[in-house]
């Protein structure tokens, strides 16, 4: 009896090995599924939470942020430092400095959630790389939005009331080069 069981088990065991081999052979004949990263890139979904960025109002070409500092207060790790000035002609304060310490940011989204004026959103950059640690420790979001605003005003040449020259804004002079981050590959 036990001999029969033993033989049967040996046979079944051997068969299971063959089944395993068949499966790996079948898988080997199927196309590869990995993304060859530097050559192919992924498209991030709409809700992807990258690092945060300031939002430009498409109407006026200015940052929406009113420097209310709610985001900085909501941040669990205290990684947002921002400041605002009240420019002449504006009713509200507007942002003049916005630095994110991306090394401590946990991408939880509390800041985006709490923002009353929808002035922050997640970027879709997922491969943020740099050779410089400072790039992440003091990620100057304001410099970026400035660049965007300049591009906007270049694309919308002088409607009746000339928009304030963005160069006049007190941009952070010590900020690193305005494009330290790699573009999302391509």
């Amino acid at each position, binding site marked *: 009896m036990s001999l029969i069981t033993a033989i049967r088990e040996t046979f079944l065991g051997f068969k299971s090995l063959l*089944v395993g081999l068949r*499966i790996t052979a079948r898988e080997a004949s199927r196309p590869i599924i990995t993304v060859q990263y530097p050559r192919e890139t992924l498209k991030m*979904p*709409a809700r992807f939470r990258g690092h945060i960025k300031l939002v430009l109002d498409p109407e006026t070409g200015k940052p929406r942020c009113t420097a209310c500092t709610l985001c900085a207060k909501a941040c669990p790790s205290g990684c947002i430092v921002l400041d605002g000035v009240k420019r002449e002609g504006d009713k509200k304060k507007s942002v003049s400095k916005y630095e994110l310490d991306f090394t401590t940011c946990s991408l939880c989204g*509390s800041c985006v959630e709490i923002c009353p004026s929808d002035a922050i959103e997640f970027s879709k950059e997922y491969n943020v790389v740099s050779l410089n640690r400072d790039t992440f420790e003091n990620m100057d979001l304001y410099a970026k939005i400035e660049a965007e605003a300049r591009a906007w005003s270049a694309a919308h040449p002088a409607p009746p009331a000339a928009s304030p020259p963005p160069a006049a804004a007190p941009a952070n002079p010590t900020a690193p080069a305005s494009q330290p981050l790699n573009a999302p590959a391509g």
Partner: protein
Amino acid sequence: MIATRETVSAAPAAQGPQETFVLNLGPQHPAAHGVLRVLMTMEGEWIQRAEPVIGYIHRMHEKMGENRTWAKFLPNTSRIDYLSAMHYTHAFVGAVERAMKIEVPLRAEYARVITSELNRISSHMVWWGALLLDLGGFTPILYAFDDREKILDLLEGLCGARLTYCYYRFGGLYNDVDDEFLRGTRDFVQHLRPRLKMYRDLVTDNVILRKRLTNIGPIDAEMCRRYGATGPVIRGAGVPYDVRRMEPYSVYPRLDFKVPMYPECDSMARYLVRMDEMEQSLRIIEQALDQIPTGPFLAPKVPRVLRLPAGDYSYAVEAARGRFMVRIVSDGKEIPYRVRLRAPSFSNLSLYEEASRGMILPDALAMMGSLDLVIPDIDR
């Protein structure tokens, strides 16, 4: 870290005719997932005593809980056990909701169940692959990761993150479950069923794996009880203990699922429990997808700054590794007075010393794999 004098001499030193030596397994070792160190007193390949040494990535989450508001602690919860982040957030959110008596909308509850179960499947897939890696089979982890990627893609599309979701909010969700997610989840369920069969053919039925796990690393129900081991460990010891059944939460009572249980008490039983759990999770997801109502995804009138009524509250969930309990103590202020995180891996590992006595090294590592340890979960 070097073996200190005490730790070495605490082991039964070489006295009498048997000779022992101390093997420092870890903190960097291919089989110690993460930075776990096991101080093994060996006699040849036989383990006389295996003492886990932990704390290498201790982050003091509990202290962090005491110096920030309830809402600010929320992201931390998905970083304790990064493989089943949903469950951990669920427990914390649940505890706060219990204290505040917040009624969570039904749609949010169903969405929580769906995402939790998806998370459970993805966590079990990592375990499956890692166990096979421990046993020397390299291919399964990549098959599992292929399928797991699909879950992560779904969850990323839903909440924007792939691992540390932080998706639940007090009284609901971070954002609504969209149709795309629901459709994708349905497709995924269809996709995974044949894959699970493939897993079974490739690995579960494999005679080598059977030999490696059957009758290896016995952990019986009594040992589980004395050590507080939960999850697949206790269910592999023949006790159908599942928090989803024993202390029902969310909408689990409305869903029909079985609690997989194997009475063999060995590593294979724990293995089979997890494999069955994946199928049960698929069942749960399907039902939840069928039942999910429309409606709000966030409870109205949840104050922005929470002040919990004084008292202590606990909330337990069935995480992928077992019972995860959050015990919060509030003194009425807006920051917690005490947050206690009861991690399942912690209790599951604590029985290792007793259970591994007298085993040989490969078997002990196979048993360690069958416990499904996540070191950040242990160290917190």
